[in-house]
């Protein structure tokens, strides 16, 4: 057995010692023909096995509870003592992350959509003025054209001042809309810690289930999970370390061109 869980292994190790000791005793008793005492030893063994199981389950339950209790994501509502609700709270917090990122994305998109026409307008008008200005410098402009240019310039400069101010304000707001990263980052980090704790305990649970199977002599039919290989999975993690995943658009293009695209 692994050395990583010395506490969890203790009951089982002592049970194995007991089993060995009692087995020798059982053999001696049977050799001596003392069947009654032999049955007593068997029932002692049964009791010891049950006790070991209870201890293993108890130990694991304690560690699992411990790790859930260690999950202090909710500093706003510390009066909540119900352990089970911490996991629920974690899902609530993740829903909050989805909500916040959604709001930030929409706010940013609103501001971008508000800003883009302004910059397009400024660009279009400035391009027009550039060509008019060139004509003026070459003295190709008639006085009435110049008066018209001067009037337009007046309006343009007024609008330019107003619109560039608006662009700046929108950019500042876009900047501030990124503040979700700090808050959602903190929440996600805490949920990650909980998931790691729970995972560790689940691994211990699997390990213990293996021991329980060992003690009780249970054999399971393994049912493998099969996936079609093309089911949607969302973004791939550690794509650069995986052979079956493309690492970017260039990879996609290479793959498609190898297929005759």
């Amino acid at each position, binding site marked *: 057995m692994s050395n990583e869980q010395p506490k969890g292994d203790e009951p089982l190790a002592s049970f194995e010692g007991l089993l060995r000791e009692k087995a020798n005793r059982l053999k001696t008793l049977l050799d001596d023909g003392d069947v009654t005492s032999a049955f007593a030893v068997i029932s002692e063994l049964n009791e010891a096995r049950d006790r070991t199981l209870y201890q293993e389950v108890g130990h694991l339950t304690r560690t699992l509870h411990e790790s859930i209790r260690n999950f202090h994501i909710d500093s706003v509502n510390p009066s909540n003592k119900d352990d089970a609700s911490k996991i629920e709270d974690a899902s609530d917090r993740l829903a909050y992350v989805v909500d916040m990122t959604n709001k930030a994305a929409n706010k940013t998109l609103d501001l971008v959509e508000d800003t883009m026409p302004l910059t397009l307008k400024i660009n279009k008008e400035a391009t027009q003025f550039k060509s008019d200005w060139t004509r003026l410098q070459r003295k190709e402009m008639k006085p009435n054209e110049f008066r018209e240019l001067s009037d337009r310039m007046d309006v343009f400069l007024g609008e330019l001042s107003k619109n560039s101010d608006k662009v700046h304000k929108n950019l500042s707001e876009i900047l501030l809309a990124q503040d979700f990263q700090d808050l959602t980052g903190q929440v996600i980090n805490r949920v990650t810690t909980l998931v790691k704790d729970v995972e560790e305990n689940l691994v211990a649970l699997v390990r213990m289930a293996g021991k329980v199977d060992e003690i009780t002599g249970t054999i399971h039919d393994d049912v493998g999970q099969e996936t079609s290989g093309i089911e949607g999975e969302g973004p791939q993690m550690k794509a650069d370390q995986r052979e079956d995943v493309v690492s970017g658009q260039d990879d996609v293009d290479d793959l*498609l061109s190898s297929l005759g695209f």
Partner: protein
Amino acid sequence: MNKDMKILVVDDFSTMRRIIKNLLRDLGFTNADEADDGSTALPMLQTGKYDFLVTDWNMPGMTGIELLQHVRADDNLKTLPVLMVTAEAKRDQIVAAAQAGVNGYVVKPFTAAVLKEKIEKIFERIDS
């Protein structure tokens, strides 16, 4: 390439639909509608008024690959150009999309330049 063509953008995240619509507008395509999954998109496509489909893969209800298969199986839609814009990055998936008859495949996160290039490539091939 006809800049007035009618485009359907299918993605379950409204922000991604907005991003794609904005990028399309920047490329001069101002005539785009939205749907949030394949089962909403398919009846819209069946009206016959769309010239180009941009779809995500992973969506609740009907996925993008199923939508693509439905489109290719429909006599009125089978020649509709389809661009997949998705986070799905497994080689098997890209091969499956190609076999299902996708016209272009863009992996997220993507840039405006990549989207432009793929759209141009699709219509170059169709127009030629």
